[in-house]
């Protein structure tokens, strides 16, 4: 979703229409939460909390880019907090469900399996993968959002891709994507 200026005449984000911001970024926030938690009601609740926090702190944000960065950062941290607080069961990587039969690349089941594999990654690597492939963010930007060194982000990405590749090899051996 391309970022566009909220109001050309008013650079201050405080004057922006909160409704417009919610409509523009609801998909981004909800999707990060959903891919992380794999639970629609929990993701919806978390996304609502993020936007309510945005409503309370909107006057402190300077630009729309700042709002976007803030939303990604707060959503990421809330995802981790939510999972720890609720002690949501995390499927271990080896226990992630195996497909009943080989699938075709266009089959949504492949995407579903990949989502499950991503959901079975540890918290931080999972967020890194989600921000990288959902939001198409560069490692430097992910490092800024998650407040971690760029080298750590790259390391998480490499290890996660290796794990996912291994899992795909073991479970979907005949799939062509």
């Amino acid at each position, binding site marked *: *979703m391309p970022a566009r200026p909220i109001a050309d005449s008013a650079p201050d984000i405080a004057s922006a229409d*909160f*409704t417009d911001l*919610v*409509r523009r970024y*609801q*998909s*981004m*926030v*909800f*999707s990060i939460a*959903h*891919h992380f938690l794999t639970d*629609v009601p929990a993701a*919806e609740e978390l*996304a*609502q909390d993020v*936007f*309510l926090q945005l*409503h*309370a702190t909107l006057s402190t944000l300077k630009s729309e880019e700042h709002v976007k960065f803030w939303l990604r950062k707060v959503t990421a941290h809330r995802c981790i907090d939510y999972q720890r607080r609720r002690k949501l069961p995390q499927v271990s990587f080896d226990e992630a469900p195996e497909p009943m039969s080989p699938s075709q*690349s266009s089959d949504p089941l*492949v*995407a*579903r399996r*990949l*989502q499950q594999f*991503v959901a079975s990654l540890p918290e931080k690597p999972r967020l890194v*993968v*989600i921000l990288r*492939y*959902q939001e*198409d963010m560069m490692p430097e930007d992910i490092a800024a959002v998650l407040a971690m060194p760029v080298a750590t982000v790259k390391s998480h990405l490499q290890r996660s*891709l290796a794990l*996912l*590749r291994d899992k*795909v*090899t073991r479970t*979907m*051996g*005949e*799939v*062509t*994507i």
Partner: protein
Amino acid sequence: MTEMNKNPKPLEEALRNALRREDAPEGFALKVLAHAQQQNAAQEARRTSWLSIFSQPPLRWAAVAAVTICLVVGSIYYRNIQRQRAEGEAAKQQLMLALRIAGTKLQLAKEKVNEINTSRPESQPQNRSPRSRS
């Protein structure tokens, strides 16, 4: 081995496809806006409940009286400070004048003594006592 397994790019493409953004549930924005309005209303209620103390006439008059008393006491205190400062300044001026007068008088006395000493230079040795000569 699949193509995805051998080459990271297809895997990355598959991840992009699997993790693409999804639409938020139906009515999500409306729910958020409703909660935000409730948040606003609660904040407004807190603010007005604090200010509503002053809507009662006795308390309003008490507040006005308190402010007036503070202003009066403050102005009296300020005037006292100003008066004490002026008095101190006047005392300082008087002291300086007294010191100047005393200095002038001392100067005159010194001149007189010098004058007396210079007018009788030869009579001094005759007046000396025999004890002092020895």
